């Protein structure tokens, strides 16, 4: 077999791909970086302000609050689906009647369009006319403000995320469980291990790499969450559910402050890169052969 020839004349073949990547990935990023150093509002002039936008952001109470809301939302919207999704995977991994039908029903929320989901939940959250407060009244619990109260809005939005995305975690973990070897369990049974011991010392370590994949996907999704929050609360009441994405949208597409919004994007990008590296490192460490 002839060895690969990497002489310069073949580099030409990679040029189309390089150009496409430069046009759709590299250029927008460089342009965003450039814009973050400008004071530009659509319809107005452009003025170079260096790091001025970043300095202003550090003093912007709304921006700092939105970072806190994003963190709060992301932690809950990752941890809860992971816990419930793993538990559901363990249940659906066992043999029982109607398993196929129930599993299909369980994954259905995942197939729904986020905006449609958000609209349906918005109706259910209505404090006076929504079905949720009616259900609470049946068990003698008073009405909740759900997304209409600052104190409950983020946990309620997380509830929608949990309903929507727990099936995805379940499917990923279920895939991991299906590929587990039987031998460790047989050995453990001979040694007198109970279900909890087997889960804690065999299942969890073996399925952990799959859970890590689910954590990475969920973290990225939760950080990106926009459609559900925007449709249900638009960041409200007040600014109680204003995450970084909502803050960014307001700056760019409501106030048309493109330079300022670009600075938010740059900061957001740095956060995501750091978090992704951390998660990828954790995933690498969790591999079976590590």
């Amino acid at each position: 077999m002839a060895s690969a020839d990497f002489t310069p004349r073949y580099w030409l073949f990679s040029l189309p791909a390089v150009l496409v990547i430069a046009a759709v990935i590299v250029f927008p990023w460089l342009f965003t970086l450039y814009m973050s150093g400008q004071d530009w509002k659509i319809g107005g002039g452009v003025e170079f302000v260096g790091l001025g936008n970043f300095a202003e952001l550090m003093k912007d109470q709304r921006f700092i609050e939105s970072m806190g809301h994003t963190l709060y939302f992301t932690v809950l919207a990752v941890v809860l689906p992971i816990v419930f999704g793993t538990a559901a995977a363990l249940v659906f991994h066992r043999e029982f009647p109607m398993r196929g039908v129930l599993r299909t029903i369980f994954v259905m929320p995942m197939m729904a369009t986020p905006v449609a989901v958000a609209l349906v939940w918005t109706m259910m959250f209505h404090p006076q006319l929504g079905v949720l407060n009616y259900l609470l009244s049946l068990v003698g619990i008073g009405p909740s403000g759900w997304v209409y109260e600052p104190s409950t809005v983020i946990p309620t939005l997380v509830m929608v995320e949990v309903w929507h995305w727990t099936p995805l975690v379940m499917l990923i973990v279920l895939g991991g469980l299906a590929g587990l070897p039987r031998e460790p369990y047989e050995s453990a049974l001979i040694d007198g291990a109970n279900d909890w011991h087997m889960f804690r010392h065999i299942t969890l370590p073996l399925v952990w790499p799959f859970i890590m994949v689910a954590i990475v996907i969920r973290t990225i999704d939760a950080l990106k969450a926009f459609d559900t929050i925007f449709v249900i609360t638009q960041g409200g009441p007040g600014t109680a559910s204003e995450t970084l994405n909502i803050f960014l949208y307001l700056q760019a597409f409501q106030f048309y402050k493109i330079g300022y919004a670009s600075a938010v994007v740059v900061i957001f990008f740095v956060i995501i890169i750091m978090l992704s590296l951390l998660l990828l490192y954790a995933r690498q460490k969790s591999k079976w052969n590590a």
Partner: protein
Amino acid sequence: MTDSILKPTRRVLLAGGAAAIASPFVLRKAQAQGAFDWKKFSGQTIDVLLVKNPRSDLMQAAEKEFTELTGIKVSAEQVPEQQQRQKAVIEFASGKPSFDVSGISLHVQKRMAAKGKWFENLEPFIKNPSLTAPDFDFADFGAGPVAYARQADGSLDTIPFFVDYWMIYYNKELFDAKGVAYPKTMEEIFTVAQKLHDPAKGVAGFVSRGLKNANIPVWTSLMLGQGMETVSPEGKLLTDTPEAVWAGELYRKLNKETGPVGQVGFNWNECQTTFMQGRAAMWLDGIGFATPLEDPTKSRIVGKVGYGVTPPGPKAHHAGMFADGMGISRGSSKKEAAWLYLQFMTNKKNQIAMLKAGAGAPGRSSAYLDTETIAQSKFGKQYFDCLLASAKIARAGLPQIVPVTEFRDVFGVALTNAIGGADVAAELKKATETFAPVLAKSEQG
């Protein structure tokens, strides 16, 4: 034939007489129509950017008739309001918008349109008899809407075809049950709401928008009762004055003490649903939201809705006014064809059609005098009385500045915080300090 002329029957004589009497009118009408050449720009195609709403549906339905009359083809698109505003801003800023005609919300984009020189001045078109049909009758547009559409330099760059007045919807059944009369003053709105507020029965005395941004017109409508808008004609913020604080306090009391649970997150649609289900005694909002209230498939209070003019405040009596206008893009190469489209879509017939369909209040005064439309309407006389009375006391509901959206955002948060228990004066002062540099900067660039 000759015989019939020489010996006419009674029927022929009557028909001839009627024709003779009617002929001057028919002739004048024919001359008026004949003098104006609608086909002058036949063969052209114009692009139109509209906001998605029932009024745009009516315009699109009228396109066929327009094309038959003028030979001009129309390519119109309806975009949801928020996205339409973004599209307009971005495309106008590019200098080469893809549309010849665009609708705008005057209460949000008026100053932005003037500053960015989005539209052509329509006065030369209106005054040009070769471009404007004699029966267009621009003087028929209400003085209020026209003044609202007119820019600071006196130019008129949009036709104000739709107006919304803020008023109070009230549930007559709930009022009658407790023997309460409609409030005579703004302060009385609160005392009346207290009497009707019955949380045990799931009835709120009052409902209005609490969601930030959306809540601003409620506060500004109350502030108009002090004879004051939020920004002075000289561009000074009046948002932390005693009058503004008074309106803020009334807004807080009404919503916090007589509003439904969770109303801090309510936009107009939640208010509408709550009121429509008989769960609120009063609702302060635009009259343009009336249609579903009288729809038996959606509302539980059909026939029980009262339409009340916003009561007078301590110093003045006004109704908050909001309006939509349509203009011709300055970058358009088919301005004349676009003007024919504007004329046709805002003519008397189409404005009456808007009122008839319950699609909103037209900018033309004649529409409200059309007795046939009023008689056929599902809304009672009180609705039209309220509309006309509000029109007479109408005043801009939002400041006429460039950064209207930021204004609504910043002060919207202050009002939401106030409902949550924060001090109204402190919140308005803080918001004023935050917004003042934004306003100053917008006037510089």
